[in-house]
């Protein structure tokens, strides 16, 4: 394993492997102490980036959305009595998405601007990492309004503290509750479940009951991991534990409560003690679920799962077992303190090899390119179009597993061609205002190879040289 001694090389690795790429001047700022430069970003007290100022809260967004849904339900009722036409209903449905679209645009644009302006892009990388770990996806309509709010309200303030606190904040955020359908999950022996069973004499197919989606994904994706040792019975029991975790201001009998905020609905909660992963949890209302989450956060399988994902993300597809073991031990020894884990990751010599081992994901490529040239399109549509074209719109992984994080998931032939096309467009826009050689030095420092250097010098135009820089193996990897 080559040991890195050169400070500028270390600075370039710090900015690119751990951050979203260097802006002009970043390498010089990092060079005196690259590891310290990274860790200072996560040790400083939390402050929301100014780019996020003025964004609507999930409470306001959801309250408006739920109100519109109720109105639509009323229209539907009217339609069934022959008052409104099918056309009215269709318009109402499309209208709901349209109502949320501006929130999505604002949140995604603010997120992008925060990254482009950030002096702490390691911290921004971590925000994206955890947001993807706790993924919600905007192909579910309601998430258009809530995905960014989940990140800003539940995740951003907690990524440097205890994982248990982050976990609880996410699982009680209305965005996650609604994405994974828990708001109407009803315990069969809860007040509401029993009342419904009495009212409908026959077996209550589909009337009211459990939904196991949130419980399963917490176990499989958020905490233990798929090989973490839980069974289908654990999933079902955990779903019963989580009954009542809901939001206020829904439809019908879920209408009460502060609209758009988390609400524990005791009348939905399956009563009684429950045994999960071999441990017994006494009946305690919402506290029963809190206790399970706390134990899950402290579980060794969770420590390994999180350590594996972090190492895969920042270092290499196939994580070194030594490093995963070490991070998992530190996680458990420090009560799940994430900054301790990041610190161990940053201090691992194996993470500082000069050869880059990960092909950038589209968002990483876009951020690093725009940061290198300090380009921030003002029009949000233009700002966001790049993510669309390169196949990674904000908060749209399509599933609760989030975006995949291996090279093979991103290095398709067509993906490369799209990056070339996009780089040409960006280079044409920048024109001759930047020299490729200077930009290469500022973004990659000593990581630029002689082969690439020569290709930049031989380019047919300044703009073509910029494209070559953006598409160089050194810039495409981190």
């Amino acid at each position, binding site marked *: 394993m080559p040991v890195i001694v050169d400070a500028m090389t270390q600075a370039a690795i710090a900015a690119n492997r751990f951050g979203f790429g260097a802006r002009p001047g970043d390498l010089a700022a990092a060079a005196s102490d690259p590891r310290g430069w990274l860790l200072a970003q996560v040790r400083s007290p939390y402050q929301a980036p100014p780019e996020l100022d003025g964004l609507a809260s999930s409470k306001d967004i959801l309250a408006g959305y739920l109100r519109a849904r109720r109105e639509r339900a009323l229209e539907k009722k009217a339609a069934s009595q022959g008052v409104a036409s099918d056309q009215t209903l269709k318009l109402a449905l499309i209208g709901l998405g349209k109502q949320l*679209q501006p929130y999505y645009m604002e949140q995604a644009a603010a997120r992008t601007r925060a990254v482009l302006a950030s002096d702490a892009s390691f911290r921004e990388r971590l925000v994206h990492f955890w947001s993807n770990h706790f993924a919600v996806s905007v192909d579910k309509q309601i998430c258009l309004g809530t995905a960014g709010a989940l990140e800003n309200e539940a995740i951003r303030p907690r990524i440097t503290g205890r994982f248990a606190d982050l976990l609880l904040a996410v699982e009680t955020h209305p965005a996650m509750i609604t994405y994974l359908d828990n708001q109407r999950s009803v315990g069969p022996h809860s007040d509401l479940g029993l009342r419904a069973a009495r009212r409908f004499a026959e077996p209550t197919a589909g009337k009211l009951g459990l*939904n196991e989606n949130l419980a399963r994904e917490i176990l499989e994706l958020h905490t233990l991991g798929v090989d973490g040792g839980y069974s289908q019975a654990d999933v079902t029991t955990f779903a019963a534990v989580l009954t009542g975790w809901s939001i206020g201001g829904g439809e019908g009998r879920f209408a009460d409560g502060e609209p758009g905020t988390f609400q524990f609905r005791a009348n939905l909660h399956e009563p009684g003690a429950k045994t999960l992963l071999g441990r017994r949890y006494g009946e305690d209302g919402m506290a029963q679920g809190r206790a399970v989450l706390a134990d899950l956060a402290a579980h060794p399988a969770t420590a390994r799962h999180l350590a594996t994902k972090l190492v895969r993300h920042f270092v290499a597809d196939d994580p070194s077992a030594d490093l995963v073991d070490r991070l998992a031990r530190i996680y458990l020894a420090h009560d799940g303190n994430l900054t301790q884990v990041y610190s161990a990751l940053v201090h691992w010599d194996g993470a500082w090899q000069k050869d880059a081992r990960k092909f950038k994901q589209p968002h990483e490529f876009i951020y690093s390119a725009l940061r290198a040239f300090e380009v921030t399109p003002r029009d949000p549509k233009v700002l966001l179009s790049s993510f669309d*074209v390169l196949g990674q719109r904000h908060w749209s992984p*399509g599933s609760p597993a989030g975006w995949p994080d291996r090279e093979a998931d*991103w290095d*398709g032939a067509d993906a490369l*061609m799209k990056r070339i096309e996009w780089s040409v467009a960006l280079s044409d826009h920048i024109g001759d205002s930047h020299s490729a050689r200077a930009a290469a030095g500022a973004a990659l420092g000593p990581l630029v190879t002689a082969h690439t250097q020569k290709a930049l010098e031989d380019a047919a135009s300044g703009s073509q040289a910029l494209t070559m820089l953006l598409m160089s193996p050194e810039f495409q990897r981190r």
Partner: protein
Amino acid sequence: MRNRRQFLAAGARLGIGALVAGALPGVTFAAAPGGRPFVVVILRGALDGLSAVPPYRDPDYATARGPIAIARPGDTHGALDLDGFFGLHPAMPLLQERYRAGELLIVHATASAYRDRSHFDGQNVLENGGDRPSGTASGWLNRALGALAGRGIDGLALGQNVPLILRGPVPVTSWAPSRLPEVEPELVTRLRDLYSHDAILSARLDEATQIEALADDEKPTSPAMSDANAAVSNGNVAMADGNAAMSASAPVGGAAAQPNAGGYQRLKLIAQTAGRMLAAPTGPRVAVFDATGWDTHAAEGAGEGQLAARLGGLDGVLDALRSGLGAEWSRTAVLVCTEFGRTVQVNGTRGTDHGTGAAAFVLGGAVRGGRVLADWPGLGERQRYEGRDLRATTDLRAVAKGLLRDHLGIGDSALNDVFPGSERVPATRDLVRA
């Protein structure tokens, strides 16, 4: 002056495989004469087979399904009858036409070797062709291409990247429509040189230029596609102008596989182009694409609603593939599959949770269709797998092996390498016409 791209396109049009092969270093499409098109469509998220292909005459169906049961044929929003026991969801009339034409075979109560309920592990097993989620880095379709070795690039993923099912040692490529201007051949040449020390990037670049040439030639000329191209081909969109067609303003999705208000409009265009590429003399032989959005935990709907909208979209996508293939449809087989099924019983939120036995579709002019292949286990509580799921009675690997053997001509012994650990799962016979 003709550039390389036009040159290649001309080659493809004239069917001069050797000319194309000579024009590019490394790789080329050159399907052997007589190679029959094969397409795999993966429905990610676990399609509810009991709604897509309702066993409406099963005595337990209507009770178990309650508010999401598909009504019987003849009733409002009732199933489209197939064989007096099974029906098709009413949102899929085009598939019913294929069934009647003898070109659609439905496999029901089927599953891969996977028996747990994680989407992501389930998809891994569906794609790696093994019996465990991890430990196999390549996909069964790539290994199948390996068994047909020596024909250049035969595998195409529709999308920017290659899904696991098609990844592996055999070179494959990927393609999705672009909104940005084409890249000058001169730049490609320079990049090829820039990548001369980088095995992966140089391979990807060659694969990309290959398929781009074919895509140029095989672009559909339907008004819809022309409009779509015109709307997005307007230069410098990445940065400078605020072209609204750049679709950051589109209501939902944006990835190729995500349904939109029109029901998979973009995926329809992709499927049609894929059909044209497969039909081209120098085109790929196998293609794969995804359709997402099947994870119906809540408000699934019955004859109308959320799932109905997706199924209607899928119906159109498969028909677009057929129309793109043109006359080649008669020699084509398409396998549409999902990672697992969903619970028999409707859940507490009028949806269904992760299950086991699923439905799969095998269609195409080469398919011996017009029938439902199912060793029906029944829906009663005791008949279910673990008391909750449709029991899987047909191994999906048997169906895939039958298609690879009888449609693509891969020998029995090679099939056991394509699906490791499947020695006791014999290939299903008579899926395709002789």
